[in-house]
């Protein structure tokens, strides 16, 4: 589906629940699912999908490419990691970052992906990263991921570094998980099912932005009888499920340097609403910019052990299409 220059893709990470739990669930199965949803472009995350990482064997890459060809789907982007803590007790050096980045560029090129997504490259290495990207013909996107927000100083410093370097091979991949405005009901139910007290969860939510540190909040909750489930909620709410007012203005500052978007979501209701992430303002900002490219849907309901990726992806794609079609006349 391509609506005024914006195309929808799917991150295979969306299918992680079954991929991790079911030994026989493979990329081939995922590509069948993409076909059913009418999606051609996908992102593959190496550390999730491959048996060897950071450098998968030729056989593993060949198997992905053969399955993609069979199902007429295309590797659009490759999700990398900088595993700079791989060597126990070792203080990471520039060489550790360069090795992992190079390995990911090699793999992305072998897959035929135009983009590699990275989580962590120090600013002083970005000029070298741009040069390596040029050599390999693969653009490098730094993911802007919760708990970071676009307006954070380190993100804005990275934006300035991109502008200074001036390479089209470097940019951002904003992840919509940055814009969670409140925890989802399915997520809260999962903590409750794991033994969390609803009252303590409300206490944690109320105090998330009160200025108290994660460690101090954990101590307070323990003192009130909280256990493992509450501990998990605190860790999540200070981490990848961090929530608060969506930083839409900050998001707009990144649009000129955004390569594509991780359209992250946790739950779409039957009436096609995302109660957690403000999709319309985000898509309005993208539509109002000159961006032409891919919205990569990424379902993360499996964080709550929800085994409904295909249904949720279908709803999410439709939600995006509804908003984009609605906004299309406003786009020049």
């Amino acid at each position, binding site marked *: 589906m391509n609506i005024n220059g914006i195309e929808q893709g799917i991150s295979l*990470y969306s299918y*992680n629940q079954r*991929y*991790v*739990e079911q*030994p026989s669930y493979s990329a081939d199965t995922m590509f069948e699912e993409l076909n059913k949803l009418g999606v051609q472009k996908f992102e593959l*995350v190496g*550390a*999730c999908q*491959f*048996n*060897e*990482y950071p450098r998968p064997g030729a056989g593993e890459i060949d198997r992905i490419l053969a399955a993609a060809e069979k199902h007429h789907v295309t590797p659009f982007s490759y999700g990398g*990691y*900088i*595993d*700079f*803590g*791989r*060597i*126990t*007790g070792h*203080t*990471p050096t520039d060489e550790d970052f360069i090795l992992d980045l190079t390995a990911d560029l090699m793999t992305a090129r072998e897959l035929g992906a135009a983009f590699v997504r990275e*989580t*962590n490259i120090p600013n002083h290495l970005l000029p070298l990263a741009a040069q390596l990207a040029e050599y390999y013909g693969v653009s490098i996107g730094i993911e802007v991921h919760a*708990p970071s927000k676009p307006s954070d100083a380190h993100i804005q410093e990275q934006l300035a570094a991109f502008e200074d370097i001036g390479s089209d091979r470097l940019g951002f991949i904003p992840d919509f998980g940055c814009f969670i405005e409140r925890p989802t009901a399915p997520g809260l139910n*999962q903590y409750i099912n794991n033994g969390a007290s609803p009252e303590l969860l409300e206490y944690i939510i109320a105090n998330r932005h009160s200025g108290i540190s*994660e460690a101090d909040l954990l101590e307070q909750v323990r003192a009130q009888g909280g256990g*493992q489930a509450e*501990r*998990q909620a605190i*860790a*999540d709410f*200070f*981490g*990848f499920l961090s929530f608060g007012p969506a930083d839409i203005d900050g998001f707009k500052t990144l649009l000129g340097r955004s390569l594509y978007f991780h359209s992250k979501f946790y739950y779409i209701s039957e009436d096609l609403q995302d109660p957690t992430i403000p999709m319309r303002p985000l898509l309005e900002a993208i539509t109002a910019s000159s961006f032409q490219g891919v919205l990569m849907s990424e379902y993360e309901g*499996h*964080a*709550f*052990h929800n085994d409904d990726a295909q249904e949720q992806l279908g709803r999410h794609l439709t939600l995006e299409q509804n908003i984009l079609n609605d906004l299309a006349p406003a786009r020049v």
Partner: protein
Amino acid sequence: MPTSYMKLPYEDKVLRPDALTAIALETGPVGFRLDIGLNYYRGLPLSAVEEFTLSIDGEQIPDHLLLFEFDGKLFPLSQLPLAFSDFWSVKKNLTVLVYQGGLKPGDHIVEIGLIMRCVYMQFAPGIWGQIDNSATRTLTLKEAA
């Protein structure tokens, strides 16, 4: 600040129902093997293992009796932190071999304590995110193959 502590909901694949198998040689039962899956959304290097304990029916196995088998290689517990180029993917098991004379047939309470370093998430020099891969299950001992 990134998430400092993670226990994901894939706990059922850490100790699957068929994970515990007797080891027998010509002399009879000599020990057991336990297959351990990863409770994480992505693979990690074996060097990320920071703490490992194994108890059977409440009795902890001494470290010197833990012998790990991975991709055809053997590692004592003390060598796991050095295995930074061995990648434990979400589809693979780490197997621990224990030669303690064998277990009685039937059910056993198996408890592993396994803390792993999140190798891409550093808070401060030397301070990394932690992944709790621990699990406790009652498993039925399978006969030696």
